[in-house]
């Protein structure tokens, strides 16, 4: 599930030239912007049937934080 999530994350933010790590702080990515945030919210809703509210999203810093949050809500 972890690799699938990393792939989806990369694809959603259209990161094409490199690999990403679970420990990355995603807001530091060059590709990160407000449309990226919306695309990510949409992807998580589509793939995991989970809406992450913006207040909650603000507390998540790394790719792993997002992944762990999804796991905690969908198990």
């Amino acid at each position, binding site marked *: 599930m972890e690799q699938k999530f990393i792939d989806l994350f990369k694809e959603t933010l*259209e990161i094409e030239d490199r690999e990403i790590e679970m420990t990355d702080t995603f807001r530091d990515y060059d590709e990160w912007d*407000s*449309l990226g*945030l*919306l*695309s990510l*919210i*949409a992807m998580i*809703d*589509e793939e995991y049937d989970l*809406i992450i*509210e*913006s207040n909650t*999203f603000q507390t998540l810093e790394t790719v792993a934080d997002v992944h762990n949050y999804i796991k905690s809500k969908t198990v």
Partner: protein
Amino acid sequence: MAFQKIQNVKVVGVSACVPNHIVDNSKLEMLGTPKDISKFIETTGIAKRHTVGSEKICTSDLCFQAAEKLIEDLNWQKKEIDCFIFVTQTPDYILPSTSCILQDRLGLSTDCFVLEVSLGCSGWVYGMATIAQFLTSGNFKKGLLLVGDTVTVTKSDRDKSTYPLFGDAGTATALEYCEKATPMYFQLSTDGKNHKAIIIEDGGFRNFFSEESLVIKEREPGIFRNNLQSYLNGTDVFIFGITKAPKSINSLLENFDIDKEEVDYFVFHQANKLMTEKIRKKIKVGPEKVPYSLDEYGNTSSASIPLTIVAKLRDEVTKNKKKIVTCGFGVGLSWGSIYFETDSIICPEIIKYNLNK
């Protein structure tokens, strides 16, 4: 949930008028590099927008020309129009109500029932629900619903979170009392808890206009606006739209036992493609049933549903019987859906605003 079934009312015509001035998003430097620009256009679906620009054109002007053309094509006598509703959040004045000004300008009878409704993206849906209620009893026979906004006037051209998304338009919808009409169905909701998600803070009576209202401040890095310009919380509104709109449509279909497969078109408020495609996938309908006018006109607030019908379904609705579901959602927060049927309605081509009329 608020559900309405309305008998004896049929839609007989729809028209739309847009300003001539076009903003081409592909040339908008505020969006960043050429790569950023193409990503923006691809994600939002918004390539161009018709805006009032520097002309002093109000919503009432656009709606007036849409109405004149529709009334003429319908062969209606103006004195027969006994119910007139105007929906906008960009009126001519704080007072009087612009609906009164339009009653006179259109030459409607002083005995016509006239009302103004203040709603944005859900405005056409609520306007339809309201005018249908007045017509259903047969007390009124001919109803004119004018719906539109010039929201671009309320956007800061240094706010890339809102400025590239919006266009301006005015529309007219004509309805008649008709005992043979198939029923119209409505689902309507409101959640004022999130009223600050889309707001113009100053200039009303809560925060009266002051010198401070004009001070342009940096709200987020690179985003500048004053308090007379509208704020939009993109993330909250996005989550709202992709959650509430599908629920509204699904509950409408379920409550009134409407077969989704029988519906010819689902016309959504044209917010942006990321949002509306998400809504489309959630209600599980194919792209061939969901028309878009976003590419050419952007998000035109309350006008977007009738504008899309005119821009994209004109051939279909003028020649055939069609079953249509529409869904409006946004500022308020307010949202709702309609199911209605049309049978060879009057639908003139999109009118380009004539400055000399």
